[in-house]
């Protein structure tokens, strides 16, 4: 007996293909184990017996697809996730970034914006935000809207504050938000220079030259071929000696681009284009 319904594998492929043909979202090269979990969860949420039934729903109803996209994209994030990453950025990347008269930073797979505000705060405290353009991209339009609003639950703020302190924060985290109705509204000056945009690492191409790309906890959901595609985009976008920051368990080391980057802070997954 199997954990999942009969024909699960076949039907997932058909669903993914249908989503690609209809909505141009390409999940064909995502890691299977995680995708299977998400689809199984979606079946429960939609009250569908089979993936085929789910497929029929999302093919004919864009709102249903939008609901499914929330499940498939895993919009989970936090501010200053892995504080040592941000600390390492301050110590080893910021000094180099200072040497540029103007900066472009790309946060790829920014989800609901926590990483964007974290980066903006860091750049602000280092006196760089004024001369920086941040591109914050994701494939989930609802996450991008949430990122742009910059409102987070009061519950999450305690964790954010702890992370901020461990990440070498120079002020009080509360300087950056206004508390209201059980929520924290991020200071909008932080996103003054942020452009939020729908962009897929699976199907879109490079849109700008950048000095620093931060792409965290996105590549773990891709197979090797799609990871290579993403690394290709980053490599093309980055200027000579530009920086690439990844999630705590991600590396460029086993990719087709291994030779084209060198580690800057190995433990914190910060690399530099050769």
């Amino acid at each position, binding site marked *: 007996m199997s954990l999942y319904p009969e024909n699960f594998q076949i039907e997932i492929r058909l669903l993914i293909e249908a989503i690609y043909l209809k909505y141009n979202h390409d999940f064909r090269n995502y890691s299977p184990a995680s995708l299977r979990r998400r689809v199984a969860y979606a079946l429960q949420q939609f009250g569908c017996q089979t993936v085929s039934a789910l497929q029929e729903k999302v093919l004919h109803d864009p709102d249903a697809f939008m609901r499914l996209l929330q499940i498939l994209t*895993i919009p989970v994030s936090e501010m200053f996730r892995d504080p040592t990453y941000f600390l390492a950025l301050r110590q080893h990347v910021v000094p180099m970034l200072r040497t540029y008269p103007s900066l472009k930073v790309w946060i790829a797979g920014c989800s609901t914006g926590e990483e964007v505000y974290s980066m903006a705060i860091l750049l602000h405290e280092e006196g760089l935000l004024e001369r920086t353009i941040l591109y914050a991209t994701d494939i989930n339009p609802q996450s991008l809207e949430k990122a742009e609003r910059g409102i987070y639950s009061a519950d999450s703020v305690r964790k954010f504050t702890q992370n901020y302190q461990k990440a070498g924060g120079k002020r009080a985290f509360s300087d950056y938000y206004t508390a209201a109705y059980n929520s924290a509204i991020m200071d909008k000056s932080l996103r003054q220079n942020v452009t939020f945009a729908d962009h897929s690492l699976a199907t879109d191409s490079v849109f700008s030259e950048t000095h620093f790309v931060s792409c965290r906890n996105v590549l*773990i959901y891709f197979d090797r071929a799609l990871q290579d595609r993403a690394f290709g985009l980053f490599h093309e976008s980055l200027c000579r000696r530009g920086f690439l920051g990844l999630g705590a368990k991600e590396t460029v080391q086993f990719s087709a681009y291994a030779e084209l980057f060198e580690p800057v802070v190995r433990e914190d997954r910060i690399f530099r284009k050769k």
Partner: protein
Amino acid sequence: MTTAAPTSAPRPARRFAVVVIGASAGGIEALGTVLPMLPKHYTLPVVVVLHLPADEPSLLAEVFSYKVGLATKEADEKERLQPGVIYFAPPSYHLLLEADGTFALSTEEPVHFSRPSIDVLFGSAADAYGERAVGVLLTGASQDGARGLLAIREAGGQTLAQDPAEAMISIMPAAAVELGAARAVLPLKDIGRFLAGLEKEA
């Protein structure tokens, strides 16, 4: 004197391909009993989720490397499972097994307040390995793991729970027993002996 005729039947494929172990409160001690019982040159990969306070850099692989005869390490995404290696889930990630014999990581929401979650690992083991999976649920104060162990059992795999009477905290193995997820309920020493014995089943 006659010697037994060589059998012409092909050697049956090894029954099991992976051991997955889940533990929570009291888990370091329990694993400290079970893991050292595995023989050197063990031929199955062993994958462990142990609940720990998040954010602590995980020293598990190091801690156990001194106690265990086998290689220990934190699992990396897309890493291929190797026989005789004990893998630990990295802190703040779910660890999943893929059908192609590699690991996957995910940052999706915690399950039963836990990330890594035992249910997530066990569920993926049931899905990817089915009857070739061995699931072991040890001491803990969580609800995590029982459903995953049931998934392995329903997929035809072998499932063991630590005897709740012996467990430092009985809640977790008791939940598995209650659900009917465990084919065998055993004290730690017998779990260790059973796992070591899988070695001979070739």
